[in-house]
């Protein structure tokens, strides 16, 4: 574990054991049943006209959803904004240098990886801020922890966090299968024996929602 992560981990353990102040979780979402599409299946788009958000919209949406500044979302080596480094991979143009005047209009092989990098970075920012923010936590708040673990992955607070992320990133209520999948994810993560299962779950559920197709296409 890197020194800065070790310090955070120690702070978390201390907080979880010595800071009993009650922090309310986000309100419970109105979890929706997975739609019963019937024998014909769910109605599909015939046009199929999906567009990738591209560098600026993606960065802005990630920042807004997680209440962080756009320049905090992602930087390579802590210095170089991902928005610039990966601009073309994210579908941007580069008119003044190599003369790429028009976007390609299609995603590149490296685009999904770059989106993931940005998602991990943004989520890491939010999670680590919230873990030390106590009552001022923005997204990941009111989640009962026992040491570095979630006290109850099946508890309503976990559902509330899933709901909060779904509201913030996808602007809708979560479905039952989404809640169930993220609860299972919490248990799967804990089963790996990782030292910080609660943090890693927060990070992972944030990543999964942020890098979902619904969040990066429109």
């Amino acid at each position, binding site marked *: 574990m890197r020194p800065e992560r070790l310090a955070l981990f120690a702070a978390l353990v201390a907080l979880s054991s010595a800071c009993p102040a009650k922090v309310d979780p986000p309100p419970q979402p109105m979890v929706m049943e997975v739609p019963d599409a019937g024998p014909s299946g769910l109605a599909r788009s015939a046009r199929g*006209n999906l567009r990738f958000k591209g560098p600026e919209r993606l960065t802005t949406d990630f920042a807004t959803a997680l209440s962080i500044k756009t320049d905090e979302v992602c930087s390579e080596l802590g210095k170089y904004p991902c928005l610039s480094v990966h601009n073309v991979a994210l579908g941007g143009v580069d008119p003044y240098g190599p003369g790429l005047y028009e976007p390609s209009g299609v995603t590149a092989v490296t685009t999904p990886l770059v989106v993931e990098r940005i998602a991990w970075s943004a989520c*890491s920012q939010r999670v680590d801020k919230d873990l030390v923010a106590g009552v001022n936590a923005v997204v990941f708040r009111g989640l009962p922890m026992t040491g570095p673990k979630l006290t109850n992955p099946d508890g309503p607070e976990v559902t509330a966090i899933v709901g909060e992320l779904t509201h913030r990133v996808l602007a809708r209520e979560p479905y039952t299968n989404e809640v169930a999948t993220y609860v299972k994810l919490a248990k799967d993560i804990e089963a790996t024996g990782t030292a910080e299962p609660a943090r890693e779950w927060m990070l992972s559920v944030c990543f999964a929602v942020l890098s979902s197709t619904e969040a990066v296409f429109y």
Partner: protein
Amino acid sequence: MSLKKNGRLSRREMLRALSLAAAGTSISPWLSGCRQALQTPEDVERGLRRDALDGKPKFLIVIGATGGASIIDSFLAVRQSEGGANAAKLNTVPDAQVQSVANSPFRAVKVDSPKLGSIPVPVNTDQLAFVNKYKDDMLVATSIGTSVNHTIAQKRAINGNAAWKGRTLQECVALQWGQGFALPNVNMSVGGYGERGTDVSLPASVYAETVTSPSLWPLGLDGAKGIRGAPTKDIAALARKARNELDASSVFGTTFADSDAMKRWNAQRADGAQLEAQDLITRLNVIPNMPPQIPLTQYGLDSSPDGAKVRAAFPGFFDDPFQGQAALAFLLLKYRVSVAVTIGPDFNVALGGNIGFANPPLAFDYSHNDHRAGQAFMWNRILSNVDKLITLLKSEPFDMATGESLWDRTLIYVATDFGRTRGRPDNAVEFGTGHDLNNGFLMLSPMVKGNTVLGAIDPLTTYGYGFDARTGAPQPGKQSSNEPDLFSGVLHAMGADLTGSGLPDASAFKNG
């Protein structure tokens, strides 16, 4: 480091750090970390690349000589004494500057000019050493194009004017030898050289991955590595799995399941895993670890095991985009990531190098302003980087059993837009030229018929004439377009399967 006002990444800070490494100084302290975990190319081939190895891939490097590289300012130059009555009005070169090459049909031009047009940098170039060194791997073919528009002509230089259903040479090579390669076709060039072909029937994998920032692009070749705070690989895999399952069954995913964008995205997610498995974020990373400006190891990253070697060959890799492209091109081939790579200078000024100036505005098209010095400068730029690339490729074993090097299986095609107009004011040394359909192309490879000129130049007009692409016999007076011959020639030389292509027989290009 911060964004400049125009939204672009400022490079000054990084350049300061890189200047220490620019001369290829010892960088062994930087090469630490996870190198032990890296597989050799042979390991990769034994595993992921087995199919490709069985087929023994061949490689194509296309160099887009942007702006119009004139063949009569290089290997087919005409001496003033050969030009007859009009020699003073045509682009002939003083006899003393056109050097013969022993046992070769090629010539080499030497230029000494105190300035490059209105730019006060000296131009002192001599092509002789290059030609002597590589003549046996060099083929020059005269050409008649069909467009003097830069973008259109560039495109036709790589698709033979739609000679084979509109697909580009790079796409043909990616289709032929790129199976199993993570990114069969990487394109770092611009304009028409950067465009994809028009044959929509090809698999998506053969269309080029566009790279505009070769030195920084490898940082995007892993979904999490180097991102502070990201979880371990097994946790990340669990998160991906959960996300992918939900994506597949979500209302959004189902609604747009038939969308081309969605299908492509899902395929690309799978391809991304292949990039990660090869640790390309490390292997292709030319940048050295130089904290505090470039703190690679602090972020769990490292420079390529070949970083020192490549930086020594291309010390201006970060400052000069063409050098950066060449450095990445070598690594893409070495690590069997790509079989077709496209590089080349662009229209922008680049600073750096021995004289502090690497690329004039408009690249070869600076000939509008100062033809002779512009061509000399730019040819020198191309040949210098080709020399370094070939040197690196020769140093890299391809098949221990046969003793082949990577160079033995690589063809470098110096594509260019078109030639230049031939006229000049009487005996002018500094003059401008326009665009002309008449020109020639350079190919380098052990696979081409070396030390060969296909076609020839009429010294009385300085225009080239054509040749029979099958026999190689010159055809004086032939002035019809031969774009399909040149396209076919590259593929013939490489030994591509051209069944059903309808391409002309271009056996004259092939060695043996």
